[in-house]
């Protein structure tokens, strides 16, 4: 039960940092209101019948069918509400989102994501803004060329930036992500940006979105700080380890003598438990290393559960600096 006690649970939709997500959330919330009302209506009538018409309470059952005008009204209401949800919310929301890609004058940032078992290959065009051609014959993870770029022969590919599992994006600027897959069907899903799209081999499918201005991964991390209890000596540290996985200490965690047990920005793990216990530390504060995660939502094979990426949101100037730095690094393969 320690697991329950430590949790700072999330009950409903996760935070949303996209500009379009509120419409999806609004639709989800309204449908649930409608569902709750309908269910409660049925439930009240149902419960009342169960009590009122139990065997002993009612000597004879009614043979003639009742004229249930109410049922016709309810059914008509259900139809009307569903039509409203469909016509006023669902169809326009989707149309606005899907049929209206960013225009060139909005200066969209385009990036390609090529999924494979079990990683997300991120392909940036580099300073020239042109994507190098991906050639299936040149693909070789072993040689550090997971996308099959021809660095020597293809001028567009020379300055391309390739990253693994970490998608850096500027906030406040439209983003177009073109998705495909090298092997099987994956699904590119970023719940906290309300984005989801299957990646289908043989097809290139775009998604677009804009991250809200003024936000960043660093700022989001601040909102997700949580307290994790250090297990007492002799207790299985499994919950502690779970709560610290992919999380980092938000401050230096020091023992009584001032030695640092877990440094700020480091991930606490099972090996720290003993030192923490000795120092008498009962709780530590951690936060997600990269709070906005990419999920693969389509079963893609043996380690599907590990196919996780991160979106790292940066203010535009910071992003430009990072991008220039990566470009200067040339064709280096960025490792986590």
């Amino acid at each position: 039960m320690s697991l329950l006690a430590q949790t700072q649970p999330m009950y409903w939709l996760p935070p949303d940092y996209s500009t379009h997500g509120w419409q999806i959330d609004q639709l989800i919330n309204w449908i649930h209101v409608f569902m709750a009302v309908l269910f409660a209506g049925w439930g009240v009538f149902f419960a009342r019948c169960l009590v009122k018409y139990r065997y002993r309470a009612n000597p004879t059952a009614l043979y003639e069918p009742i004229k249930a005008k109410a049922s016709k009204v309810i059914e008509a209401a259900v139809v009307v509400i569903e039509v409203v949800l469909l016509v006023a919310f669902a169809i326009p929301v989707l149309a606005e989102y899907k049929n209206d890609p960013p225009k060139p004058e909005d200066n969209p940032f385009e990036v390609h994501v090529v999924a494979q078992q079990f990683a997300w290959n991120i392909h940036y065009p580099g300073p020239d803004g042109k994507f190098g051609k991906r050639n299936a014959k040149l693909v070789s993870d072993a040689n550090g060329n997971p996308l099959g770029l021809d660095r020597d022969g293809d001028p567009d590919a020379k300055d391309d930036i390739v990253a693994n599992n970490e998608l850096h994006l500027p906030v406040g600027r439209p983003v177009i992500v073109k998705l495909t897959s090298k092997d099987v069907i994956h699904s590119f899903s970023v719940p906290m940006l309300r984005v989801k799209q299957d990646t289908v081999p043989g097809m290139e499918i775009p998604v677009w979105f804009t991250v809200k201005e003024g936000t960043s991964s660093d700022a989001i991390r601040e909102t997700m700080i949580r307290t994790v209890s250090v297990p007492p000596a002799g207790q299985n540290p499994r919950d502690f380890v779970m709560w610290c996985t992919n999380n980092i200490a938000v401050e230096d965690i020091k023992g009584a003598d001032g030695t640092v047990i877990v440094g700020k920005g480091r991930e606490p793990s099972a090996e720290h438990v003993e030192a923490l216990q000795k120092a008498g530390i009962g709780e530590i504060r951690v936060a997600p290393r990269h709070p906005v995660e990419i999920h693969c939502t389509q079963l893609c094979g043996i380690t599907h559960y590990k196919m996780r990426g991160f979106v790292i949101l940066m203010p535009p100037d910071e992003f430009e600096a990072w991008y220039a730095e990566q470009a200067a690094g040339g064709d280096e393969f960025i490792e986590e």
Partner: protein
Amino acid sequence: MSGGHHHDHGSGHHGHEPALHGHHHEPGFIGKYIFSVDHKVIGVQYTVTALVFLLVGFTMMLIMRWQLARPGEAVPLIGSLLSQLGITHAQTGALTNEGYNMLGAMHGTIMVFLGVVPLAVGGFGNYVMPLQIGAKDMAFPKLNMMSYWVYLSGGIVMMASFWANGGAAQSGWTSYPPLANTALSGQTWWLVGMVLLITSSLLGSVNFIVTIMHLRAKGLSMWRLPFFVWAQFVTAFLLLLAFPPLEAAGVMQLMDRVAGTSFFMPEGLIVGDKPTEWTGGGSPLLWQHLFWFLAHPEVYVLILPAMGIVGEIIANNTRKPLWGYTTLVYSIIFLGFMSFIVWAHHMYMTGMGTALSTFFQATTMIISVPSVIILTCFIISLYGARIRYNTPMLFALAFLPMFAIGGLTGLPLGLAASDIHLHDTYYVIGHFHYVVAPGTIIALFAGIYYWFPKVTGRRMSEFLGKLHFWPTLIGMNMVFGPMFFVGIVGVQRRLWTQTDYQLGQLTQYWVVFSSVGAAVLGLGQIPFILNFFGSIFAGRKAAQNAWEATTLEWVAAPSPPPHGNFLADPVVVCGPYEYSVPGSPKDYCPQCQTSEA
């Protein structure tokens, strides 16, 4: 196989009765209990086999739920045993991620194709439907026998796949290529098994349709059929029309795997850093269209027989006619029809254009209307009733709110915009399990308690029945309820563990809660197993019409019915649910005159 000496008893006014059908001699042991052509024996064979598979599929779920609550820890009791199949680690006894994917794929396949459908259609349909229409047997008894044995073969192939090189299929019950095409040999076994299971269902569906069309008793017009028979009738059409595309698709995937075709494989695939051998030119999405063209109607194959059972039990235990019988029948026919044009709502995330998704969103909203009508009819049937709270009725009543939850939570998934967030999350798992488990399986339990006295001549224990009902209802809600919240937070499905993810960590407490619910549910099945087997031998003897019902299986056939079913041919004089007719001496009027032999 039941002996060749057919001698026609010459009975029957059925003009259409096939010659094959006239034999009512008592065959020997093998002919009577194993290779039987009697619909009742086949029904019992289906029922028992399907219940065993349900238990197997349920056990797989318990192992997965253990892993989800305690990731990477040894599976209790059977952990080391399963290592032989590569499901668990040999050293630690913990479920491997391959093992998790195997159990995931096989749990889905077993529950749907080897458990629920065979029980609902092969079991209940086979046993009850001919009795309810006053037929001596199915129209094609040998075809009926064949459909059972093909089903069993399919089941054996499926289970044997655990011993295949690399273990059982791991690509989900949906088996999407290219993953399924590139998977190890267990997938080939899965496909062979599926082809057999589909063949079995097709054979059965033809038989059901012909039987209902041609073998009804005198006076039994279509509008006097019990609702259960209508439900089986519509279900049979769904099976007949929806399964062939998947059978074709299954063979095509099999060819992709063993004969080098590329139906579902695009060009230039690189798997595990190596180019694949397929020439390409195929489409992975083609499989999804073919699969869901079956698998959406399949949802109604699961739910319609359940609704049929619930309708029978509600009419019987409210002691009043089912409210809106005609409306109910038209609703299920409409459901059946519409179920063929909603399939692509499973595919909103494949990159579908807005025009196409608008069509499928609209049809999906339309198909929810008859479901709402059916539920409303059942609930209004309770008004003015005289409700007997016996075990079958408890299960039938529980079906109503549970199916309501399952149906309603389909709405946000059916709209493409809200589906962006919810697609392939635990919300989906919660949704379809509410339809199938607390929905259909609860109704199937109701049916077992209701018709058990007819099959065995003995009643099941009411005490043990209630001891089964409450933990089942509570346990199912504990297991599946939290999934909506895990899903709405955004945790994706089919993960060996979700604790590596931020959103997974924040909802892990629900996962633990679900697993506790699974334990409750598991313990709750012990009274059922005891009751089921105990009552066969030691249950209280039941009268022929154990529930004072109106329909033919109760009023015209002994319990258990003999070979040939009826002592005298029933002649139907009224509709199926003439309960509490004013001025009648009893509170029910049998559907035929040759009552209570």
